[in-house]
């Protein structure tokens, strides 16, 4: 049996319900793991050990009373972009370094009600802007597979914690790939639900037409369990969809015979590292062997424009969302003299890091007089074209499969001076957000770089609100592969 901290939710739940282990033992094992490895991984900004142990004691009572659900007593990690009542929520920014939320995010409420045990808040790129966790104002997170490398971002802390045994599952947010890309680089499952599927109430806003919340887990089965708990309409988020939520575990049939899958040409470019290409092609072969019908002839011609569309729309929305950080209501504020405007400029000069400033300025530029039509409106029109191409594809295919990233994890510091090269990490994940689709990354092989084994991800996309198909394909793939069972040696 693996160490307690490396169990899947399903395995841990089995032990809890048979009373072979208590939630307090499980939680202590995870907290001890954090103590022993997090000085190297740096996945957590805040660890809430005392509250976690109290919650675990309550969960054990619930289990004893026969009132337990699938997540009761399971330790999890909260990305520090989600509000946690009474627990510091920083967005890994100086701006919110001492911010204590007066309420819980919807997803946090849901998981509390399910009896899951929050053990801490994970490090991230500041305000979820970045692909490496190096934009954290506090410290970078390290990839558990090679501590000299990045875990990906922006939910890098959640991905690294899940990979390193510092939680059993985690939540993150995904605006352009911030769940799927770090999941791929850390060798865990990451699910970005359809836009509208999970309430964003209590998620610190980055780009409101793109942001979604989703789980990091060690198996697709676990992703279905967490997704069941967080999906569904919430009146406090008017963009949450008024749709019934099926039990997603019923999608885990293991059978994908006859499913029609497509690989778009535009995702097999020269930018794709040869090892990543080989791993991807091997994954496609596995799906074919399982009975899926794979077509390599799909073309999504607007794909090369996705990067530009994203880096206009996301910063434009961010520039409006982040206008709220004015040093008056909450957050960092320089208390020296000066006029109101001087004070506001100082608040934002010293409260925000460079990447956040870059994006606010790009967005402000794109929305400013004289540029709106050429940039922002044009990007929204091309967004329509990207969505239409996906809609047409999903008339013919049940799902699209692609690599998650062009390469495995890169070295810390390798791309920090070159924003464009950093942005290019997300070329394969951005279109899903632009089109509002669900997307999932599952562990899909390894690359050998400098003698180290580094994980790669297989991305699956489906039509809006068809997460069941993602989970069905991912689960069948995991019945035929063992990538997801490998753990980094620490």
């Amino acid at each position, binding site marked *: 049996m693996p160490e307690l901290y490396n169990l899947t939710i399903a395995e841990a739940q089995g032990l809890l319900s048979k009373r072979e282990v208590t939630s307090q033992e499980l939680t202590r094992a995870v907290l001890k793991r954090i103590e022993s490895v997090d000085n190297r991984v740096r996945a957590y900004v805040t660890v809430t050990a005392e509250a976690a142990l109290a919650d675990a004691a309550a969960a054990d009572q619930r289990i004893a009373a026969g009132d337990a659900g699938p997540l009761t007593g399971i330790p999890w990690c909260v990305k520090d972009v989600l509000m946690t009542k009474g627990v510091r929520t920083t967005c890994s920014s100086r701006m919110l370094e001492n911010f204590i939320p007066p309420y819980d995010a919807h997803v946090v409420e849901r998981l509390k009600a399910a009896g899951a045990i929050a053990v801490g808040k994970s490090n991230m790129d500041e305000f979820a802007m970045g692909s490496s966790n190096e934009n954290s104002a506090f410290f970078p997170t390290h990839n558990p597979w090679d501590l000299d490398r990045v875990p990906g971002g922006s939910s890098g802390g959640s991905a690294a914690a899940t990979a390193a045994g510092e939680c059993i599952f985690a939540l993150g947010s995904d605006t352009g790939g911030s769940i799927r890309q770090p999941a791929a680089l850390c060798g865990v499952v990451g699910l970005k639900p359809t836009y509208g599927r999970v309430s964003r109430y209590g998620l610190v806003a980055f780009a409101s037409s793109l942001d979604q919340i989703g789980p990091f887990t060690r198996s697709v089965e676990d992703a279905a369990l967490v997704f069941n708990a967080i999906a569904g309409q919430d009146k406090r988020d008017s963009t949450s969809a008024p749709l019934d939520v099926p039990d997603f575990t019923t999608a885990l049939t293991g059978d994908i015979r006859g499913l029609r899958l497509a690989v778009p040409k535009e995702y097999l470019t020269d930018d794709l590292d040869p090892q990543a290409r080989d791993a991807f092609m091997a994954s496609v072969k596995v799906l074919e062997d399982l009975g899926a019908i794979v077509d390599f002839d799909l073309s999504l011609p607007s794909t090369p424009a996705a990067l530009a569309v994203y880096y206009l729309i996301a910063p434009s929305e961010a*520039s409006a969302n982040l206008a709220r950080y004015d040093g008056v209501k909450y957050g960092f504020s320089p208390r020296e003299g000066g006029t109101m405007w001087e004070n506001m400029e100082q608040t934002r*000069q010293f409260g*925000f890091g460079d990447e956040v400033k870059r994006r606010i300025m790009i967005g402000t530029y794109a929305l400013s007089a004289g540029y709106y039509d050429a940039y922002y409106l044009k990007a929204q029109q091309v967004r329509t074209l990207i969505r239409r191409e996906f809609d047409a594809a999903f008339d013919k295919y049940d799902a699209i499969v692609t690599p998650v990233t062009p390469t495995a994890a890169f070295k810390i510091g390798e791309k920090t001076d070159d924003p464009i090269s950093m942005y290019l990490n997300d070329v394969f994940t951005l279109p899903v957000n632009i089109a509002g689709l669900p997307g999932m990354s599952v562990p899909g092989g390894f690359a050998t770089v400098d003698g180290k084994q580094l994980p790669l991800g297989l991305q699956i996309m489906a039509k809006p609100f068809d997460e069941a198909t993602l989970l069905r394909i991912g689960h069948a793939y995991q019945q035929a592969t063992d990538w997801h069972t490998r753990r980094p040696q620490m």
Partner: protein
Amino acid sequence: MALTREEVLHVARLARVGVTDADVEKFQQQLSTIIETFDVLRQIDTTDVPPTTHTLPLENVMGDDEPTDSLLPAEVLLNAPQQQEGYLRVRAVLEE
């Protein structure tokens, strides 16, 4: 399209982000490189293509007009940098 120094200063002012001379130089170069990548959009024909602001077809979402619990003043002010007598304290907006 390269941004001028004046354009960077203008955008920084619109965004209310204070910048040093070194910042202006750095952002001028970086923002110009980013904006150049947007040129790819010009080659795409978008005649008669409506813009997408939102991928979910929801309109006029209404809530019931019922009183619900809200945060207490003390909770709202919990994180205020400066407060006075139950209010947020702000700097003078009007000058003499």
